[in-house]
């Protein structure tokens, strides 16, 4: 299996997900599960840090979109940081940026 690691932290009331490796359907589902668990704990602000993630596929991005839509329903927000230009382009193509935002840094994403 491709390398994939997910580290979840809580910072200033937000859930920060440090993603490392390849976000395919499996990785995307793992991110989604982590978010839903945090939602159950009352967290509605998420920052997905992609500094160590350089590769995704459309199935993985679709998982992220589902989570974003759920968070948006609950009046929460999702931000991404440290995104490569190609990933940003892919997010835009798939409409992920209609309901989430890309920031340059984690600090900016936490403030956003």
């Amino acid at each position, binding site marked *: *299996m*491709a390398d994939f690691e997910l580290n979840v932290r809580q910072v200033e009331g937000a859930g920060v997900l440090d993603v490392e490796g*390849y976000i*395919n359907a499996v990785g995307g589902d793992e991110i989604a599960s982590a978010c839903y668990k945090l939602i159950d704990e009352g967290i509605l602000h998420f920052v997905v840090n992609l500094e160590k993630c*350089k*590769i*995704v*596929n*459309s*199935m993985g*991005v*679709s*998982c992220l*979109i*589902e989570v974003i839509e759920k968070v948006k329903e609950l009046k929460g927000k999702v931000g991404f940081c440290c995104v*490569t*230009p*190609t*990933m940003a*382009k*892919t997010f835009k*193509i*798939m*409409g992920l940026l209609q309901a989430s935002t890309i920031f340059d840094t984690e600090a900016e994403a936490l403030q956003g």
Partner: protein
Amino acid sequence: MEEKPKDVDLIIPMIPEMELTATKTAEAVGEFMKLDQDKIEEIKMALIEACINAFEHSKSEDGRVGISFDIGTEELTIQITDRGKGFDMGQAREKLEKRRESGESRRGWGLTIMQELMDDVKVESGETGTCITMTKRR
């Protein structure tokens, strides 16, 4: 003097995550061509989607995808070929539109991503399989 061929050929099995093997080759070819890193990343992303499409939809009995990297002076052309059952582009587009209209957005993004990230994409498909030809210019 006859010019030496500059193509790199790869055959990968249709196993989940084997598309990453193709991206490693794409990275190496892109670096050999001294392409911008952003372009290399776009090529890799498009190639992942092409491979996954073949894995999921081809129903190929031999379970293999052929990938050929043709190194040109000003562009890289990649062909992704399978010996599956082929598909009808018109029907595929219709199916996709219906999915989008019904709000099901999870699937069907592969070709769109390829077309947006590469400079040119051509799809040829028939009873003996499918060949996607993608080009990225410097």
